[in-house]
């Protein structure tokens, strides 16, 4: 029988639909009987949604400026090369 700890170990796989049909059924059966695990799964799901809503990292402005500069130089070089070829 699936215990609360077992369920906690495979909770992400359950949330992402990565479990086999049999495992999925055992999780569902367990959740029907266990309020604590229902809260746990709900909270883990909310944490996952929180991550999705959270910004995915911000490179600093200095890095973006350096990239802009390098692209600008490379575009110039490419244009010169294309003009020479014509």
């Amino acid at each position, binding site marked *: 029988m699936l215990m609360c700890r077992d369920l906690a170990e495979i909770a992400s796989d359950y949330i992402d639909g990565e479990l086999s049909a049999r495992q999925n059924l055992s999780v569902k059966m367990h959740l029907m009987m266990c309020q604590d695990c229902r809260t746990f799964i709900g909270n883990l799901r909310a944490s996952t949604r929180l991550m999705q809503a959270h910004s*995915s990292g911000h490179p600093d402005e200095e890095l973006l400026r350096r990239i802009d500069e390098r692209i600008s130089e490379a575009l110039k070089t490419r244009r010169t090369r294309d003009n020479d070829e014509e």
Partner: protein
Amino acid sequence: MDTAVHPDIEGSLIEALKQGDSTAYKKAVRGYSPGMLAVARFYLDHSSAEEIVQDCWVTVIDAIHKFEGRSGLKTWLHRIVANRCKNKLRSSKREVATDFSEGLEPELAERFNATGRWDVPPKLKFHESADTLMENGALSDCLDKHLSALPETQRSALMLYEAHQHKSEDVCNILDVSASNLRVLLHRARQKIFLMVETFQETGEC
């Protein structure tokens, strides 16, 4: 631009990049660099990762003409970064140290008794809506802090899967990890975020 981009919008952006339009490059750099940096940080230290991302953008100027659209632009860019990082690691004969040990985070594991039942069950229900939670500035700062503290491997997997909405298969290709190891990385990272939100909800402290 980190999540799904409408194909028409992405199509026009790609066309503008092929024309060498510098405004389009600025837009793309701001939209796609966060994800590219997350990929590079999986493999490399901070300053090497930033260098690789810069180099990749220069490569893109020529490579974009060969882009056939078999994958989305985001996946294509992330693969370029991953391949560069792998080459760099190969040339320096280094490997990414990753902890794929299974199981629960110790802090969560100790909340179960010997029979496998909850000893210290989750007390509070988190708010249903992530938007409501995110409106709490202090929680958002706390999340930033905890995300920065995650091991790079867990953070990159979480970023690509959750924030950048890549499919598992793409994340495995980009980060060069097996499907089962990706599951371990994701689950461990999520548990840490769960524990952080729980502490924050209960105590108001980060």
